[in-house]
């Protein structure tokens, strides 16, 4: 049944984050609501990239968005046994990320049999004022 599939998928997303050392290192988590998901990156001092302005490192935000995008793909693709593998990604830095929590949502723009295209957005105070966006392609086919 679809709802049971989604429920087990949510557990698998949580397990995927839990067993990925680098996701743990970032300190991120995912809150799954059916087929939707919000990724959360609680602010931590270690994430800072510029001490003077206490801004979060662009590389940390990029990694957070990449993992959020992977988790979203994993969430909605029932046939996937392993997490999707990145082909390429483009990160657009729009605003400084201040010393507070970051949120992210990912949208799958095209799901193919072998590849998929995903867009993700990270924000802090207002979702309409994105801090960073990401566009990525992943391999989703069998190995």
């Amino acid at each position, binding site marked *: 049944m679809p709802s049971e599939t989604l429920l087990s998928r949510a557990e698998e997303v949580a397990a995927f984050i839990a067993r990925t050392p680098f996701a743990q290192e970032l300190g991120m988590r995912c809150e799954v609501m059916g087929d939707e998901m919000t990724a959360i990156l609680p602010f931590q001092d270690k*994430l800072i990239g510029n001490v003077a302005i206490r801004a979060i490192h662009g590389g940390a935000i990029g990694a957070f968005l990449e993992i959020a995008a992977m988790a979203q793909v994993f969430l909605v693709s029932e046939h996937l046994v392993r997490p999707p593998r990145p082909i390429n990604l483009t990160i657009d830095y729009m605003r400084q990320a201040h010393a507070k929590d970051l949120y992210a949502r990912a949208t799958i723009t095209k799901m193919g049999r072998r590849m998929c295209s995903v867009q993700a957005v990270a924000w802090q105070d207002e979702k309409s004022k994105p801090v960073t966006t990401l566009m990525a392609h992943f391999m989703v086919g069998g190995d």
Partner: protein
Amino acid sequence: MSDDATSAPAPLELMQGNLDMISGVIPWGRRLGFRMTKVEKGHVWGVQPWKERLVGDPDTGVIHGGVLTAFLDNLCGTAAGSAMDHLRYVATLDLRIDYMRPAEPRRDILGEAECYHVTRSICFTRAWAFHETRDKVIATAAGAFAITKPRAPSTMGGNDAE
């Protein structure tokens, strides 16, 4: 043309004299453990050591792609900074990364970046990540950086507020 920055040492000399400072003053850089190993004008080399906590797939022990994002971002930013005649702070506008092949498990990753064009407000850069040589590349990056307003040399490490 009596800009404060004109009497200051060139960014390149400062960088060459403080290689460890470049990534050492960045908390996320310190956490990942990457460092710059050599700087020439508009050209930078660095190393990202393998660490258990940076692994993306525990079944293979390969470093997560997201680690390369920060590493290549910093390499490109440093290359941009070194290419300029006066001290300027640069901010990443965008960064594209292409993953060519997986990194090998439990191996350090080397990186190299160059700044190949500078305008009044933008630096254009590209970078490579590999284990041995650029011929067998793990990932490539292309980044554009915005040049911000002049800052005093003492703030090079980002130790004070603007």
